[in-house]
């Protein structure tokens, strides 16, 4: 196949331009999104056909009789209402699955901190407990960008990275925080987006499934460097993740 035909084949397979999904909840979300997009396209076509045919065909003088209002207006409206209600029910179910309950207690814990203009990822270390953080300890020059309290006994084994590294097929519970202004934590390939808000910790959980490197973006306007505020998400096989974690913990151990 030529380059061009490969391009055409890709466009046919993915006409809506969605990036590949690599999360456990993604296939259901994509399915629902594509269903919505095809329905919208069908209604768009139908409405424009009615509009165009309506203004082009021979005139019928009286126009639709007012008594036909039930047939012409309220019946289609009821059909649309049922359609939108069905889509809403499906969407709310997916939303409830994703957000109504917290993560499994066995989920991997990572604290994500957004600041102008970087994301940092705080792992709790071998004691599985995060050292406390406070703004007065923030010192990016001294390797403490998220402000871990050095006097907290849970702190010494903690480590902070500038890329998010996760094992495939294990649920992760992210605690989103923001140091200065609101930031938007978004991983398109994980079908995930949640703002990080100063003064608040927001939990979000998901399960990556396919190992690879993915983009973490900022999707809430946060200042001049907003466009370059991003990081990589590296999803590793469980075995590779254990090796990576061990090397990080060894380096962190005092």
């Amino acid at each position, binding site marked *: 196949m030529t380059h061009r035909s490969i391009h055409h084949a890709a466009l046919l397979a993915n006409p809506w331009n969605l*990036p590949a999904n690599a999360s456990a909840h993604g296939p259901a979300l994509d399915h629902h999104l594509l269903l919505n997009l095809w329905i919208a396209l069908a209604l768009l076509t139908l409405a424009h056909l009615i*509009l165009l045919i309506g203004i082009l065909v021979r005139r019928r003088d009286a126009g639709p009789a007012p008594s036909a209002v039930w047939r012409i207006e309220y019946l289609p409206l009821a059909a*649309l209402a049922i359609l939108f209600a069905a889509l809403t029910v499906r969407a709310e179910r997916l939303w409830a699955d994703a957000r109504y309950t917290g993560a499994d207690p066995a989920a991997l814990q990572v604290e994500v901190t957004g600041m102008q203009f970087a994301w940092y990822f705080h792992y709790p270390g071998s004691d599985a407990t995060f050292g406390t953080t406070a703004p007065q300890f923030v010192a990016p020059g001294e390797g403490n960008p998220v402000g871990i309290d050095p006097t907290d006994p849970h702190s010494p084994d903690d480590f902070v990275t500038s890329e998010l590294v996760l094992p495939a097929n294990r649920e992760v519970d992210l605690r989103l925080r923001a140091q200065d202004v609101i930031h938007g934590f978004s991983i398109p390939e994980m079908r995930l*987006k949640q*703002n990080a808000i100063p*003064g608040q910790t927001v939990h979000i959980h998901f399960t990556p499934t396919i190992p690879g*490197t993915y983009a973490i973006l900022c999707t809430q306007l946060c200042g*001049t460097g907003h*466009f370059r505020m991003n990081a990589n998400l590296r999803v590793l096989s469980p075995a590779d993740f254990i090796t990576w974690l061990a090397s990080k913990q060894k380096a962190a151990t005092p």
Partner: protein
Amino acid sequence: MTPQPGTPISNPSAIIPKRARRVFTTDHHTIGIQYLILALVSVIIGTTLSLHMRIHLSWPQLNIERILPGSYLAIMTVHGTIMLFFVLTTAPQSGFGNLILPAQIGARRMALPLINALSFWLTALALVILCSSAFTDAGSPLSGWTAYPPLSAVASAGPGQGLGLDLWLFSIAIFGIAATMSSINTLVTIIRFRCEGMTWDRLPLTVWGWFTAALLSILAFSVLLAALVLLFCDRHAGTSFFIPTGNLVNGVIHSTSHPGNGSPLLWLHLFWFFGHPEVYIAILPGMGLTSMILANFSRRRVFAYRTMITTTLLIGLLGILVWGHHMFVAGLSPFATSAFSISSIAIAIPASAKVISWLATTWRSRPHYTTPMLFALGFVSLFITGGLTGPILAQPILDQYLHNTFFVVAHFHLIMAMSGIFGLFAATYYWFPLITATTTKPGRLMSEALGRWHFWTTLIGAYATFIPMHLTGLAGEPRHYSQLAGIPNAAGQLIANLRPLNSFITHAAIFLACAQIFFLVNLVKSLKNGAVAPQNPWHATTLEWHPSLATNSTVAASNEKIAVYRSPCEYMGPEPESFLTQWDTDSPIHSNRE
């Protein structure tokens, strides 16, 4: 007792020189034109800014904004603020509201002339203050028209967030006061100044649009004003309504000496309680006018007229219950998110009812394709296309992917900006004779040939610009990125893949802007040399074409009693001449209709 609005108010002051009196006038017709001129200036500034953004994204090597590093975001902020407030709010509501509304209800003036003049000059002052922010040392603010704190609450959060943002706050506060006064004027006029026989169900749908938008304005702008005052206090009075304890910006901890522990989310609630009704304020008058124009050139009554009135009010009511859909991923409770999702999707029902009515009105009508009719049909098309992505974005699980991508940019530019501007173009072409008429000169018509060129190029340009944005958004491209090249990490690849499509969008945007030259040429030519309009050039049934309500009428100042005897849109067949105006005293032929 409704005052019979027969007499124009006597000249308030003979001391003011004549020339000044023509500028600082309380005459609603002149104020309406002043608003339209203000909106025209604003839309030219706003369009120029949007082209700057597109050109900077596609061809950064041209380096057209070398003044300041944050200038892309400053340009974006001013673009959004100008277009939302000074174009889409002022032109339909205050511009055409002043020019047409009194006559459409059989009145000779607006109810509160002094308040009317004051609100125009405050709006003009607000525009000057907003533009002046560009000439401060650090430039205009960069926090967008939504101004989320702490970015907007702390001056050190970015260039332009100091004096620039203070000027933005003043500008919007003054605009809000002016919009509230103008809305009170609109409401009082509609409630008290309807002529004899102008019952509520005989009001043209345009008047229902202005009425609902004015109600929303009063509710929405009062909440915005409160939010602006709180934000000002956070910036200058040491309060922390929106700043949490321990907020660390640029190495400085804010809000420790005043441990208020405020919440940025409070601003989002207050802002979007205003912001969502605001977009309906922008579009409701256009919906009303589209209904009336479709009916007029189809020579049919608007199908399901009473349902149209109901859906206008219903859209207004639901509009104040849906603000949370801007906050699905902002940290709202997931249960509140579900509630806001349901109220938001509910708007699809009255909106669909309007579309069905429009389709039924034009069905097998073989309408007259005048330029106003073309723009009204374009409004319907853009409203459908932009509207259908609304229910998609109202589903939180999908918004979790689409929020703040170009999919959203495409959605609101089609449904609000493009539909809104098509409504304004339809209004301009349709009412041009009434805009141009003076007491001594007859009104003129705009050129139909140039109008057709303008319509087709604008329609193609609008779709070519905003349809591809759905695709870049679905691919994950976020809004508010000041450059698409030189982005590090995996994100760089994701954005770089979209550069061909973005280049196409930029070309289309330039085409769309150039298409407006047809309009400007038409405007300038027709003001002086347009064909002289007959008394009722479109054979319309509504009162703004009443011979003694027209601006150039020799009997305008007379005390001739205005009364209406029927609903609008009494057409009797396809021949343009067979119709009954609202003021015709003949017995209604179609009295069995509704």
